[in-house]
């Protein structure tokens, strides 16, 4: 065990640190009042800048626009981003889960065509997995794709698709053979969201925003060349995506979590309660310390997981603990923020009395989704039970 950086890693870190000091925008926090779309454009510009500086896709192969560095340098990247209080990146699904899927399962032509544009945020990606009757039970997808010459004709519906409104492309799971057992008749397609036959409907979520969407496909034509992996073997491809979503996706979250933690500590010091700063209240001190500790443990868990993945090559089912940890930690954190803010915690954006323009009210509501998206906490615990601990399958 050696968490010291190697000479190359130090060189990498120093260069990155210098670059971030000069280039990371400082005004992200001030943009809370802007619309979702304009904030997204801001993050796209930021990601573009990173890409042009050579800092997007640290561990992705060089020939596809990445840096060809190690997974551990990817870890250093997230840590430095957090340290610099840099804004998060725009194309989260492309970077975190869809790019790695194309790298693992895609053809040479697909890698050349898609990867660099994911890194530059020129093309934003969304994930078209869930359907009204296929959430946890993903193998139940019905959205059908029928082969006609060199195209698949797609008809059906997807739901809860994050970034659907911003997306240029979609990783879509479809049914290509309805006559075989569920897991054996699925295929993954790369779908151009701008092509005819794609309808994106806003879906308002409990926060009031429409960060996710419903997708409807009417006789959408997708070239055969856009199949990822083999036809009818989409289950394995989709699982590859989900393993990344559970196991490695959380690494980037430490940027946001650390930023939130620091802000909360500032608030604890500057807010008076019972005649003294909240930071001096023994109960709140305990709770803040608990949050700090959990964020640290999340970071340690992730470093350990990344080391394991660099040894084995792929994230395994044990990655489910990362997903449980970041989602449940975030819920506890937001609740503590609410306790700290008292009645002000409930105030939403636009209220003149709202703290940080309603960021905490939004955060509190938004974290409810954390234990549902990317596989519910119950499903993650099933995965640990079935595939890590070897308990008999419950279904």
């Amino acid at each position: 065990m050696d968490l010291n950086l190697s000479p190359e890693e130090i060189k990498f870190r120093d260069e990155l640190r210098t670059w971030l000091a000069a280039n990371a925008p400082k005004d992200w926090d001030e943009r809370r009042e802007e619309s979702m779309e304009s904030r997204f454009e801001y993050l796209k510009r930021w990601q573009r800048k990173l890409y042009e500086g050579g800092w997007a896709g640290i561990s992705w192969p060089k020939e596809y626009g990445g840096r060809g560095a190690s997974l551990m340098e990817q870890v250093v990247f997230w840590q430095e981003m957090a340290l610099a209080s840099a804004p998060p990146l725009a194309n989260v699904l492309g970077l975190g889960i869809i790019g790695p899927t194309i790298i693992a399962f895609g053809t040479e032509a697909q890698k050349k065509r898609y990867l660099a544009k994911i890194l530059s945020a020129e093309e934003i990606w969304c994930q078209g997995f869930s359907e009204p009757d296929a959430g946890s039970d993903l193998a139940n997808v019905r959205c059908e794709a029928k082969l006609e010459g060199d195209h698949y004709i797609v008809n059906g519906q997807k739901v809860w698709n994050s970034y659907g409104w911003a997306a240029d492309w979609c990783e879509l799971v479809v049914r290509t053979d309805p006559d075989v057992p569920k897991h054996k008749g699925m295929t993954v397609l790369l779908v151009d969201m701008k092509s005819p036959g794609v309808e994106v409907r806003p879906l308002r979520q409990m926060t009031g925003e429409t960060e996710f969407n419903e997708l409807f496909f009417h006789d959408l034509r997708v070239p055969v060349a856009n199949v990822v992996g083999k036809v009818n073997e989409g289950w394995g491809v989709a699982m590859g995506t989900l393993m990344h979503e559970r196991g490695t996706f959380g690494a980037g979250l430490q940027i946001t979590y650390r930023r939130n933690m620091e802000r909360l500590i500032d608030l604890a010091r500057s807010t008076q309660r019972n005649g003294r700063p909240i930071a001096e209240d023994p109960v709140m001190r305990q709770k803040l310390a608990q949050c700090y500790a959990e964020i640290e443990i999340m970071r340690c868990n992730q470093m350990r997981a990344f080391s394991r993945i660099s040894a084995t090559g792929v994230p395994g089912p044990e990655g489910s603990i990362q997903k449980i940890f970041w989602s449940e930690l975030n819920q506890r954190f937001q609740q503590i923020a609410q306790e700290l803010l008292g009645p002000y915690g409930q105030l939403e954006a636009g209220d003149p009395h709202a703290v940080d323009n309603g960021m905490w009210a939004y955060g509190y509501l938004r974290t409810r989704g954390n234990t549902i998206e990317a596989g519910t906490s119950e499903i993650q615990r099933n995965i640990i039970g079935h595939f890590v601990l070897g308990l008999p399958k419950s279904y």
Partner: protein
Amino acid sequence: MQFGLSESQQILKDTARKFFAGESPVAAVRKAMETETAYDAALWAKLAEQGFTGIITPEEFGGMGLGKVELILLMEEAGYALLPGPFFSTVALAGAVIDACASAEQKKKYLARIAGGQARSTVALVEAAGSWDPGSLKISTADNKLTGTKLFVTDAAVADFIIVVARDGIFAVDAKAAGLHIEPMKGMDLARKIYSVEFKNTPAEKLANTSGLASALDVATAALCAEMVGGMQRALELTVAYAKTRKQFGKPIGIFQAVQHLCADMYLETESSRSATYYAAWALEENTADATAAISVAKMYSSDASRTVGNRGIQVHGGMGFTWENDLHLYYRRAKASETMLGDATFHRERIARLVVDGAAAGDKKSQNAERAAALVK
């Protein structure tokens, strides 16, 4: 950067697993815990033969001179086996304090005997206030003589000398010294006995002032966390094995999700405690800027986790889990004793708050970042 064990670290861990399984199986643990001291001289001789008693002692004092990470790997396996007797007290507690605080002369006298397996020892710190905060201590020496009572002293009855933390310094007291009176306390951990230690004008040899104490206790805390991780790992394995074999409604109970999810949570808590503990040991070894915070993070989390892992494990075992015959309660008992030893979760959360709420992070983001940056540079 590599957050995994090196080959030699893995070998050490595997060797320790095998050694404890062979030399201290649970039947032997049960036998030891029925004795007054839980100390087994034959087992101790074998621990010394393996070099385990000198694992972190510098080679010049007859030890193996290994690092904190190696120490915690060994302690994790000791915890997995629920090793009875004074190993933790001697090696990780007294050994660490002497190593951090004593003169070379004194190290030869005390540490070398620990490393060689000739002596057992412990640290007497806590007084009636029940606090591990050295600031809470009342006892001090007069003319190099101690008077007063220390409580919750682990393994005092088998110690050849006791390291005493007093207001005015750290002292060594010979087990045969005049005016020393040791009385058992009825602690919950049956395999690691605790005692009240009374001094009446007892001669004591000063080792140092208390300035080096904090870092020594950090080493002991990392070791204790690792022992807890080992205990959690064992409880998890026992529980999963039981869930696979115990049948109700014609099926193994492990097929029921309510049971699976208890097991999954045990896994999550065990692994997270392990990540935090390994990180803390490494941070101590490298003396990073966040080492103290990392120790508190590990102890805070492991203290709560080792209790909840035990809770869930017993629940999955049903009525069987509530019996004396089942081994889980032995681990559960130790978990409770270890939870408070060297500071419970509340104690360590306050320590963290002092570092991150009062200290750098608050209002002064830069200096905390600098601290973290320094930690990363190391």
